[in-house]
């Protein structure tokens, strides 16, 4: 019985990290990713939002446009404080897909930039 959420949280899901509060461009990028993942037959997607203030849920108002387009994949949305990003990156073997792309080409470098 157990395991559906675990599968979503583990490698079976296409994982995307989103840095900072969502803006329209970011939502557009997410939408493209979602469509691409669905077309390539992915069944699960995990979206992790690294937010300055994880208690703010405003990003969901923008994310709605992306979420309601999906009918075929399981999607999980998580929030983490921005400060957890560096730790998470260091503890990860493979580089995750991170958006917005233009902010971070090298994730660790980007973290430093963002923290400046």
């Amino acid at each position, binding site marked *: 019985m157990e395991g559906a*959420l675990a599968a979503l949280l583990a490698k079976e899901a296409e994982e995307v990290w989103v840095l900072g509060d969502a803006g329209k461009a970011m939502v557009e990028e997410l939408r493209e990713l979602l469509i691409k993942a669905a077309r390539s037959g992915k*069944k699960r997607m995990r979206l992790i939002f690294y937010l300055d203030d994880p208690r703010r849920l405003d990003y969901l108002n923008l994310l709605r446009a992306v*979420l*309601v*387009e999906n009918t075929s*994949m*399981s999607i999980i*949305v*998580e929030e983490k404080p921005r400060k957890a990003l560096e730790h998470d990156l260091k503890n990860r073997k493979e580089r995750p897909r991170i958006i917005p792309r233009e902010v971070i080409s090298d994730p660790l470098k980007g973290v430093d930039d963002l923290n400046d």
Partner: protein
Amino acid sequence: MTERFEIILTTDRTMMTNHHGKEFLGFMATGPPIGMPEHLWMWICAPKVKVDELGRPWQAPYALRKLETLLQDKGYSAAVIDPDYLHLHLKHAKILMLSHHDYFALCPPSSEWWLITKKEPVNARSFRRLMEKPEIGEAKKRGLKIIAGGPAAWQWLYRVNLWKKWGIDTVVDGEGERIVLDLVEKVYSGEPLPRYIFVGPSDVPRIEEIPAIKYASVNGLIEIMRGCPRGCRFCSVTLRPLRHMPLDLIEKEIQVNVGCGVDGVILHSEDVLLYGAKGIRLNPDALIKLHVMARRYVGKMAWSHASLAAIKNAEEEHHLISRISEIVCGRGDQDYWGVEVGIETGSPELAKKIMPAKSAPYPAEMWPEVVEDAFRIMHENGIIPAATIILGLPEETPDDLVKTAELLDRLSDYRSLIVPMFFVPMGVLKDRNWFTTVKVKDEHIEVMRRCLWHSLKWAEEIIDKFYLKGASSYPLKLMLKVFLRYVKRKARSVERQLEVELPVIRA
């Protein structure tokens, strides 16, 4: 010491009620109180349900019962609790689980009544009252986790301010059986919860993962299938894989309900007649066995939903409706049964675009004929349908609405209620604009007007001769009749004000 539960499953009064044992009265909860005070309106559609000393209701929504079983079977201290008794448990509870059909009155027909009357329906008011109970706020401060799910979970995405205000930790959109235990585990181990989960087709539970309920469901409702093969573009159910519940599971749940004193069953499926079917090819044997088995246990039977095409096909090819009518009504203690059906449109062109398989095995071009024949078959066999029409579907044209109005005229001799509903983006159309943001056309008003007069014409007979017979129903009957008179008066006055003139349709 009184028993306390750590996981509380609940919902507001409009859901935690058996509607006086008359399921259809529950639809009044989708409207605002009209012509009477709210408490009276609530008494008609959502009376309090009996509870035990711990606040556990006699009957509760089926979805909550399923989760209750799952949690209890895993050893958790969990129970469905009536919303008036949350204070007994919230001081000690770790998790509050919510479910609803229409949290914010955004589904049809609630959204429609809201638009027409400009008043918030009682289901949304009642849910807000629940969420603003001081005991929930206090428990939240102590670290209570709140998980919201159910068929209307998607609505939270349109009410993010309330999601935040009420401290909802996680929203689960989709079938929850394979997700809920993992979420609970996370709470118990102190891990953070995800904010939102959409359960896609590959993560829905298999039949063997769906447990039998342990306590009574509202009016004996029992699921016989999940999913639907017809693929209508506006419907979310069709996105889920089709699964038929085994007869022994259905029987077990009927026994549970009867054991708890509920002498009825509502067979729940998006299309009851497809039980045991291969695709849309009917399985008469499975259907007869299902009805014979159910009838052995209960005094009253009803269907939740059936498709009009299946009704026509069942009768014309297998005389199945007559045979089932004999099983349901032949004993003499029941003379009708109710079902929800979807007309959606009277236009074959629109049907072809948005619901090409709804008419199957008949071609979409025959849709109006399918509807008319199915209504005749139901009328002749003691089935009283509550039918829906969807207004504002994407690609709808004025000509489509004219065809719908014409079909309504041809249905006038068949005992039924017909409710027009505004399009709400669900299913594969869920990214489309809401119809309610679009201007209502004259043709929409004419369709709504014809639906109203059709339903008013039949409502009195349905109440008198079928739904509320007997002295014990007299107070309810009286109030409903007063309400119907009020609606008629109001409708005439609105018509006068609007001076409705639609020569295209009336020609």
